[in-house]
């Protein structure tokens, strides 16, 4: 298994299922999801650029190889997926709270 497959299985697939179950989330809140991904990338990329191969490393056997600013493309995809997945959960939880109160 590769890092990309792990992202597909535990990131993209649950995100697709969540958006299929609650299509109103990306429809009503595209701005919130877009902005959180931009902010996460803006904060994480400089952090990762410094940390990769210094603080931590990825085995070359599980990553494809291409990187941007020293950050493997899978890691960039991870940050985007993480923002979308956690952001979707946050909007859903926030809506449950709004309906309840």
């Amino acid at each position, binding site marked *: 298994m590769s890092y990309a497959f792990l992202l597909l299985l535990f990131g993209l697939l649950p995100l697709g299922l969540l958006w299929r179950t609650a299509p109103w989330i990306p429809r009503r809140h595209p701005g*919130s999801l*877009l902005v959180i991904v931009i*902010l996460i990338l803006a904060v994480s990329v400089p*952090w990762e650029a410094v940390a990769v191969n210094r*603080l931590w490393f990825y*085995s070359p056997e599980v990553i494809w190889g291409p990187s941007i600013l020293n950050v493997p493309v899978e890691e960039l995809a991870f940050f985007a997926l993480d923002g979308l997945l956690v952001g979707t*959960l946050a909007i859903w939880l*926030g809506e449950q*709270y709004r309906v309840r109160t």
Partner: protein
Amino acid sequence: MSGLESVFRFAYLLMELLIIGEVAVVLWLFHFPFLWKRRQPILIGTLLVSLYALPLDAWAVASGWGGFNPAYVTGVYFFSGALLLEEIIFWFGTAFVTISAVMIFAELERRGNPWWTLPAAVFLPFGFFDATNFQQATK
């Protein structure tokens, strides 16, 4: 181990405190009443995300997918050496900050504010957005 080497061992932890901690403090400082009312869904979400991601993280490290430079981490590991303390803090911290931020963004979006104004909500209170004509400007 020299004094400088012991300081370097906290590099990852310090990065987390500076980046995640700083954003969390700013978000909660400017939106305390709004976020405090939603503390329950924020904590539930943080717990769900961490419980989902941490076993995957531990499994990936245990399988040799990556690792940490012992010179820059505390060396405090859990679950037979697969889960580093800093990784636990990373998942709990980033989930907490992301959920808090998105709840604020979604509320502003619900009130009709355009998406490009949302990043300012990290350090500007709701009152600022209500006092401007962003909502009217987009209608």
